[in-house]
């Protein structure tokens, strides 16, 4: 079973939900930190590093002796990463998505590929919990291939994924082929706006989903009315409790620092198991 925690808006509680659900599972679990631009689930787990793998994507190099400057590579590239002026093409490796198209269309067979490092996938252990996280190299903009590498490294029957914020390619790379998406939001105009966008994404992907409201308050005139109107399942509400922020600031998992929240997370985990 694969459950992804996503949000649209950043800072709503994806990592809090993902870490505490993993800890509440009471079974061997694989937690994937797919926010490869800023992985932070490890901050809440005293996990021991087990191994690390370098992730690369193929980028083109041109054999100047074979290239006749026809420019077909340049016409093909949808990402403007290779461009020809009737001479040997100029390559911008940081824009290349590694699709290999330029190599295929080159009539002179002047293009070959070399591996270009984009980051690492790290595996760590904390008891029954295996944490797999991607770490994109500084200056690299291409998150999806690293996210795919993180997902490939997953093991076991129960996989919980901490998605990146937003609704763009890295989020789609995370959400594809999951069994259930938990969208976490906060009862603010920004939380609602980005929740709407995230709901559009998961509906487009045809994935079952439900919502958790974090920092919930009784005066929520934003998210609750929207969920009712759209007939979206409200899975749980985590109250706006100062003690949660204090535990977070100390890097302590919520359900360890505040055991009174254990029932909430165990029940939420059970609900997800039934829904997925």
């Amino acid at each position, binding site marked *: 079973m694969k459950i992804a925690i996503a949000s649209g808006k950043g800072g709503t509680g994806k990592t809090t939900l993902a870490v505490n659900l993993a800890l509440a599972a009471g079974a061997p679990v694989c937690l994937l930190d797919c926010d490869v631009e800023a992985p932070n689930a490890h901050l809440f787990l005293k996990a021991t590093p087990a191994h690390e793998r370098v992730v690369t994507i193929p980028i083109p190099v041109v054999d100047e002796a074979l290239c006749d400057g026809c420019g077909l590579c*340049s016409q093909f590239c949808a*990402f*403007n*990463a290779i*461009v*020809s*002026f*009737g*001479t*040997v093409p*100029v390559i*911008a490796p940081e*824009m290349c998505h590694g699709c290999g198209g330029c190599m295929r269309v080159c009539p002179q067979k002047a293009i070959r590929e070399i591996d270009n490092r984009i980051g690492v996938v790290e595996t760590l252990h904390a008891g029954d919990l295996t944490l797999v996280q991607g770490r994109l190299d500084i200056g690299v903009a291409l998150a999806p291939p690293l996210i795919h590498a993180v997902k490939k490294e997953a093991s076991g029957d129960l996989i919980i994924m901490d998605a990146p914020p937003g609704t763009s390619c890295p989020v789609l790379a995370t959400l594809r082929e999951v069994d259930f998406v938990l969208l976490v939001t906060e009862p603010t105009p920004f939380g609602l706006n980005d929740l709407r966008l995230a709901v559009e994404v998961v509906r487009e992907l045809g994935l079952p989903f439900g919502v958790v409201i974090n920092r919930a308050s009784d005066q929520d005139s934003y998210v609750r009315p929207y969920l009712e109107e759209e007939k979206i399942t409200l899975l749980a509400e985590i109250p706006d409790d100062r003690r949660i922020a204090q535990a977070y600031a100390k890097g302590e998992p919520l359900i360890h620092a505040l055991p009174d929240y254990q029932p909430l997370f165990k029940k939420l985990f059970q609900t997800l198991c039934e829904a997925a």
Partner: protein
Amino acid sequence: MKIAFTTTGQDLAAPMDLRFGRAAKFLVFDTDTKTSVLIDNTHADASQGAGIKAAETIVKAGATTLVTGDCGPKAFNALKQAGVKIYSAKAMTVADALEALLAQKLSEITSA
């Protein structure tokens, strides 16, 4: 010699567009025939690589000199590869920039 200018307008009287890759249009002026050709920047809204495509556009139009506001490192490298000289001209019309270039009053951009 053909000189490419980045512009927001239609002719020599129009203001310069200070962006290169995201410029609205390129006006290519031929100093031999004293005629100019206007080219739309079809890649102005590209999600990435607009500067590189802009370089390709003006080189294909035969320009060997570019006058613009600024250009980014990727466009700069592409233009250098093609042997295009780049000059910076700010807050003036295309005609003023042309005059300043021919009077050697514009500074060449030699690094990105």
